[in-house]
């Protein structure tokens, strides 16, 4: 029985057993459902083996939404525990596990795949390409991310969740203080997903540099594509640091190396440093594409071209460079001395300048525009003031001397939620509403959509503004409870109510999807928002090959100029199109990666070696495989084009 003991959850509770049963039943229901409706073949042929960037994008989207709800449930549990003083809802260990997984899930398994969805779905269409540079690699990226996410998510029913915070600082995350396999899950699941992300970075940089439509110069790319390019450059430079860091952490936990040990020449501060050398650029990886989406949305619905295109690009480049020189502001209080603190203080405050440039550019785009308050635009309008508030508290935190008061308090928690929620989450949901018709051929309901935005903002303000106050009063983060004498009770109750309202707004989002699937009109044309960039120039739904004829671009807003100034973008006649073949290898290899990760986490060495050989075998197979893709003949393209034109 010793062998099986390791899979038991260290601190079982009713909630965990209930989740086990629920997960088991859901898995059985899904498997039975697919078999009953005879969908295995469809699933395998059209989704599991696809290399089409649009389908991979949609799979990222589904994963991101699922993780949003997983992370959201964690958030509600945290706020419920803190709602009243001396609450007994969650015990301390359980609370530690919940806030650790909430952070990891929301950042790495919700926000990351959400932006990957936009990269995948939007970028090739915006630059007029037929796919990404390496379609097969793109599928591997997705499946590695997906398997990493699944591996991380089973932790709470098998073996125990990580409990050392999403930053997983050593020595807390070391074997001495984190005795369950939870931190192994952290090290290995994120490693697997991270490899996928790194490959996405390489893929999209190549795509954007090398596969733009004829005539599209770098300084004519749509702003979202620019933000994707910068974001992917940061990925390629930041993620290798995470790879090394997680490998070191894994070795400390599994092979007794002394990297972050307290004695024997170990240096636990190196974890904090390297973590944030990756971690700070990581937040810019998330926020820059969000800025890009807001740029698209604001210029579309203000009916004006984006103000200050060049300064928008320049500010993103400056932000991306600075993002690598600010990491120590995450631990001003850990004793690196006044000189280092001053340096990081100044660089951090300096980032506010290019960000401010962007805010003013958006305001000037709105100035004298014919503003139309659609749901995506409403998200953008709520983003501007709320995000600015978050930015200002960021500058407060950047002052290293004052940070001794804020450090590790709820003030910090309020700050980063204040930039991530109105910044990233609003952009993701606004962008989702904006691109929904391009994906599925019908629009999300506007009325329900606007209710969602307002409820979310009201919930957000109620949930996080009180935390600024309790934080300044000294309420520490990551503490599972507080006494009544502290006086934090009422404000935490307000925060709980705010979190509840946000939960309602997310439920409304789901209802909106259901409602729109049933009742939205289907004949909306290719360009329902009267937008400006190339992705709206092709058919809805987008055919497999994206564009029957390659677009010719002469300006920053090719499609708008085609509509208003009579530029012709589709010149020439249809020729046969070369497309990549589907492949099952990415999915199979990632499944083996899952087994490998699992056996590493539980130190089952024979299985780890066998699965590692399996992974290498897949690579060898790929090396010898002959795959030249296929051609879509002209007749088939013409047939598809006629059908899609008729569908309008």
């Amino acid at each position, binding site marked *: 029985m010793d062998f099986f003991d390791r899979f038991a959850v260290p601190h079982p509770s009713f909630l965990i057993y209930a989740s086990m049963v629920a997960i088991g039943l859901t898995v059985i229901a899904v498997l039975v459902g697919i078999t009953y409706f005879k969908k295995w073949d469809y699933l395998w042929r059209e989704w599991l083996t696809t290399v089409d960037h649009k389908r991979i994008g949609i799979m990222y989207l589904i994963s991101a939404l699922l993780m949003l709800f997983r992370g959201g449930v964690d958030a509600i549990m945290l706020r419920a525990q803190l709602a009243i003083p001396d609450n007994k809802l969650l015990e301390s260990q359980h609370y530690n596990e919940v806030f650790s997984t909430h952070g990891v899930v929301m950042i790495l398994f919700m926000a990351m795949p959400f932006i990957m969805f936009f990269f995948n779905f939007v970028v090739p269409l915006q630059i007029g390409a037929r796919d990404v540079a390496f379609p097969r690699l793109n599928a591997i990226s997705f499946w590695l991310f997906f398997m990493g996410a699944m591996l991380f998510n089973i932790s709470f029913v098998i073996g125990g969740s990580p409990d050392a915070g999403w930053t997983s600082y050593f020595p807390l995350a070391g074997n001495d203080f984190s005795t369950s396999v939870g931190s192994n899950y952290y090290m290995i699941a994120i490693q697997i997903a991270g490899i996928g992300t790194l490959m996405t970075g*390489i893929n999209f940089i190549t795509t954007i540099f090398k596969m733009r439509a004829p005539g599209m110069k770098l300084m004519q790319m749509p702003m979202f594509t620019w933000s994707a390019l910068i974001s992917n450059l940061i990925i*390629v430079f930041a993620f290798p*640091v995470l790879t*090394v860091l997680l490998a070191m952490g894994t*070795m400390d936990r599994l092979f*007794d190396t002394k990297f972050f040990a307290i004695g*024997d020449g170990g240096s636990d501060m190196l974890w904090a440093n390297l973590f944030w050398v990756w971690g700070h650029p990581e937040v810019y990886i998330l926020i820059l594409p969000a800025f890009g989406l807001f740029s698209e949305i604001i210029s579309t619905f203000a009916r004006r071209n984006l103000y200050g295109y060049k300064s928008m690009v320049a500010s993103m480049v400056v932000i991306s460079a600075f993002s690598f020189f600010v990491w120590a502001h995450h631990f001003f209080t850990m004793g690196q001395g006044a000189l280092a603190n001053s340096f990081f203080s100044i660089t951090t405050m300096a980032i506010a300048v290019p960000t401010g440039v962007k805010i003013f550019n958006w305001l000037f785009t709105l100035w004298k525009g014919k503003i139309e308050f659609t749901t995506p635009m409403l998200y953008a309008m709520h983003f501007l003031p709320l995000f600015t508030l978050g930015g200002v508290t960021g500058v407060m935190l950047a002052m290293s001397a004052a940070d001794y008061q804020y450090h590790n308090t709820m003030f910090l928690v309020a700050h980063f939620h204040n930039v991530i929620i109105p910044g990233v989450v609003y952009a993701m949901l606004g962008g989702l509403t904006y691109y929904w018709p391009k994906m599925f051929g019908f629009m999300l309901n506007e009325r329900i959509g606007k209710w969602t935005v307002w409820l979310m903002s009201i919930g957000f303000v109620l949930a996080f503004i009180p935390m600024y106050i309790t934080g300044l009063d000294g309420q520490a983060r990551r503490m599972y409870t507080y006494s009544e004498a502290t006086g934090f009770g009422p404000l935490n109750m307000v925060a709980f109510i705010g979190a509840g309202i946000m939960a309602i707004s997310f439920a409304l989002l789901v209802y909106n999807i259901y409602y729109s699937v049933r009742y939205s009109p289907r004949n909306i044309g290719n360009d329902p928002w009267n937008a400006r960039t190339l992705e709206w120039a092709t058919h809805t739904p987008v055919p497999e090959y994206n564009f029957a004829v390659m677009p010719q671009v002469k300006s920053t807003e090719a499609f708008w100029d085609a509509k208003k100034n009579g530029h012709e973008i589709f010149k020439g006649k249809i020729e046969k199109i070369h497309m990549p073949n589907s492949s099952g290898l990415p999915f199979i290899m990632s499944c083996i990666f899952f087994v490998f990760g699992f056996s590493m986490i539980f130190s089952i060495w024979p299985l780890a070696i066998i699965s590692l050989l399996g992974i290498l075998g897949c690579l060898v197979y790929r*090396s010898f495989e002959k795959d030249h893709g296929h051609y879509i003949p002209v007749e088939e393209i013409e047939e598809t084009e006629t059908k899609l034109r008729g569908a309008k």
Partner: protein
Amino acid sequence: MKIDHSLPLEYSTEENRLKIFGFWIFLGAEIMLFATLFTSYFVYENRSGNGPTGAEIFELSPVLMETILLLASSFTIGLGIHAMRLGKQKAMMSFFAVTLVLGLGFLGFEIFEFTTYIHEGAGLSTSGFTSMLLTTLGTHGLHVTLGFFWGLFIILQVKKRGLTPETANKSFIFSLYWHFLDVVWIFIFSFIYLKGMM
């Protein structure tokens, strides 16, 4: 696939050009990976705890042998690519084979070096310094090992399929990788061994 005959074989198709460009970006990521390892190494350089220091365990002769073998292999793979450009398949394959044999020699010396360290009490879990030293060297060694098999499979493919745009592209990308490992080794030799022995 359109083949552009005015360019060398490895650049002759659109797909080939994309792959070479993408691989350069991958090498950028690899530079960051090794940069992180080197930075961490400098942190641990003098953190040897109760274990041996670098000056106590480093020996010049095996390291010098490794250096000579790897630098020579970088030269021979360059000759291999030159032969490929001239369309001389046999010569190219021979140079690639010599490269891999030299790489194997390098690995042999490195394994010998590692076993010596462990005998001298500088194991993976001795101290921060030894953990980092073996991880940095091990990461490079792992790259060489993977490169050995990768190169082997490419030779087999060139033998079976001849010099096509595809095999030429693979060979060229492999040569970029191999040169890169050499560059990393020069840093290891200078900043780990020579600096440690001074």
